[in-house]
């Protein structure tokens, strides 16, 4: 497609989409290395690449003392890595990190930039897009390619989680999108993969305009819900903190954690950071218990990646039953009590007791 620059906002640089190539994925690092959330973004990058094989996947790794991690994105599917390792990048500031990526993008002209919607990504992503005078689509749940035009389709639920909007950026590049952590898996590690590592040097650096003056790590004893393999999630139907205690008991028996719906958060039953759904978190446990949760679309959006869903709800008409694997109709309280008791007994008897149970 040939863009007529006369028609565009004169504040934007005049560029043609076909001057741009490759799919960039911004890598976020912390003291443990590259974040899992940013490696997850290699999955949609690979999906786009599968429809546009001429494009390379390029991981962009910036920070201080991070060169050591450069091979990791390659083993997970990147073809190339651009590294900027500079002491002046020791502290993250959105404007400084953002500007480094903007300058790299101006030099290399990527067709696509994917950013994980972590807190940093949500802060920095729109800053990068705007400074490049291009569009960005937040919280995509999938990506695809328009077969006619070759534009990337950024797919996200607008407004309510019932519909999906396909958004494209037809006359600007790069095409930018973010996705929440855990919407995609990390592509498998492949030791045999090799790729080019390009080191870039910084000449000047943007003034952050701000200084980090205090940093107090918050200790989190509990497992984060995004990492939990078993989740017992409670809804408004849990009714009281006593109900939450039952859920906690079940969770701890199974080595899992408690999460909740937005109404459960609003009622004060669970912490806001344990909210599952469109405006909470996406989770991918092996097993998800939905206790007293009606199954609203905005909630269910957060459990699309869950392995199995067990629902307990008193209302046989509750929409959750059409969206779960095993549903039980009834008051959750005596059912959870019995379930906890049965599990405790099983635990004592040992694995042999399962055969008996299944024979019944």
């Amino acid at each position: 497609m040939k863009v007529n620059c006369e028609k565009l906002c004169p504040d934007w640089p005049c560029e043609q989409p076909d001057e741009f190539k490759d799919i960039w994925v911004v890598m976020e690092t912390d003291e443990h290395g590259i974040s899992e959330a940013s490696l997850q973004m290699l999955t949609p990058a690979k999906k786009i690449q599968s429809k546009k094989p001429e494009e390379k996947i390029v991981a962009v790794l910036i920070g201080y003392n991070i060169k050591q991690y450069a091979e990791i994105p390659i083993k997970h599917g990147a073809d190339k890595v651009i590294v900027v390792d500079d002491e002046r990048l020791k502290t993250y500031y959105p404007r400084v990190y953002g500007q480094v990526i903007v300058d790299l993008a101006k030099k290399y002209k990527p067709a696509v930039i994917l950013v994980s919607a972590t807190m940093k990504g949500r802060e920095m992503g729109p800053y990068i897009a705007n400074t490049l005078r291009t569009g960005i689509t937040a919280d995509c749940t999938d990506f695809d390619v328009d077969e006619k035009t070759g534009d990337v389709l950024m797919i996200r639920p607008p407004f309510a989680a019932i519909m999906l909007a396909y958004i494209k950026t037809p006359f600007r590049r790069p095409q930018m999108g973010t996705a929440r952590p855990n919407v995609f898996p990390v592509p498998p590690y492949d030791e045999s993969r090799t790729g080019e590592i390009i080191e870039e040097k910084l000449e000047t650096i943007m003034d952050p305009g701000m200084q980090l003056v205090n940093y107090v790590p918050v200790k989190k004893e509990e497992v984060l819900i995004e990492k939990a393999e078993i989740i017992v999630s409670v809804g408004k139907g849990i009714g009281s903190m006593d109900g939450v205690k039952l859920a906690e008991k079940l969770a701890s028996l199974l080595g899992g954690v408690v999460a909740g719906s937005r109404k459960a958060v609003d009622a004060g039953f669970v912490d806001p950071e344990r909210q599952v759904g469109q405006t909470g978190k996406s989770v991918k446990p092996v097993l998800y218990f939905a206790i007293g949760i009606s199954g609203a679309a905005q909630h269910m959006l957060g459990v699309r990646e869950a392995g199995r869903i067990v629902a307990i709800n008193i209302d046989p008409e509750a929409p959750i039953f059409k969206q779960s694997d095993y549903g039980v109709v009834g008051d959750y309280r005596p059912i959870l009590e019995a379930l906890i008791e049965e599990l405790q007994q099983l635990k004592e008897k040992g694995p042999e007791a399962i055969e008996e149970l299944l024979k019944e």
Partner: protein
Amino acid sequence: MRIVVGIKWVPNTQAVRFDPKTGTLIRAGVPSIVNPHDFPAIELALRLKDMYGGEVIAVTMAPPSATQGLEHVLGMGVDKGILLTDRKFAGADTLATSYVIAKGIEKISKEIGPVDVAIFGHETIDSSTAHIGAQVASWLGWPYVYYARDAKLVEDGKLRVTRQTEKAVEEYEVNLPAVVATAIKALKPRPVRLSYKLRAKIEKPIIAWNIEDLGLDPRCTGLKGSPTVVANITWMPEVPRKKIVYTPKDPRDAARWILKQLFSDESVAGFLKKALWGEE
């Protein structure tokens, strides 16, 4: 201090119903509200004014009906409202929206007095992109801090902003002017007061600016100034699930039924065994 706060008048999404036949959202008759996530931003702006004096100006880019939203926040103690409104602003994505807001802030600085801080909410409930704050910062060339929970002035005229990330409580000293966006439920908003409402009724401190007032090129606003376009809308694909529903005789029956399903389901059985008895 002169503080601008960005607000949006949004349909109350909790009340929006869905027409499964036509596949459209039924917005008719749905009441609009001030975006709930903007209240912590308004509260932060008002607290800064309480501490250091000055004025708080609420800004919104919207059709004229959003005047009601501005009136609501005037009732909380906001001093002025500015409605950025023009047919040529319609259909804007976040880049084109933030452009108009940034130009509005520049005009405030020139004509009303220099703006020290622009505060935005966590996100909107109708589009929930959380883009506007960062994008306004990009247009204005100001530093940006998101997820703010509190802010106060410190000695050398900087704004000390506290926020909490996934890992830490952080404090920044930020040069002014700056853009700040608040975290969800960061501050409890004050109620609307009748005296403020009456004052607003008499003084009518709401100004409307259109594209000419802002001196903007129509190629930079609304649909034309938006790099993103919606190509298509479809139903969300369903996740395949077993959908087995059981009405038990009694709680014990329910519990045993659940366990039977799970232990005969290969995808979870091994996992449960590990959870109960350690390695299989």
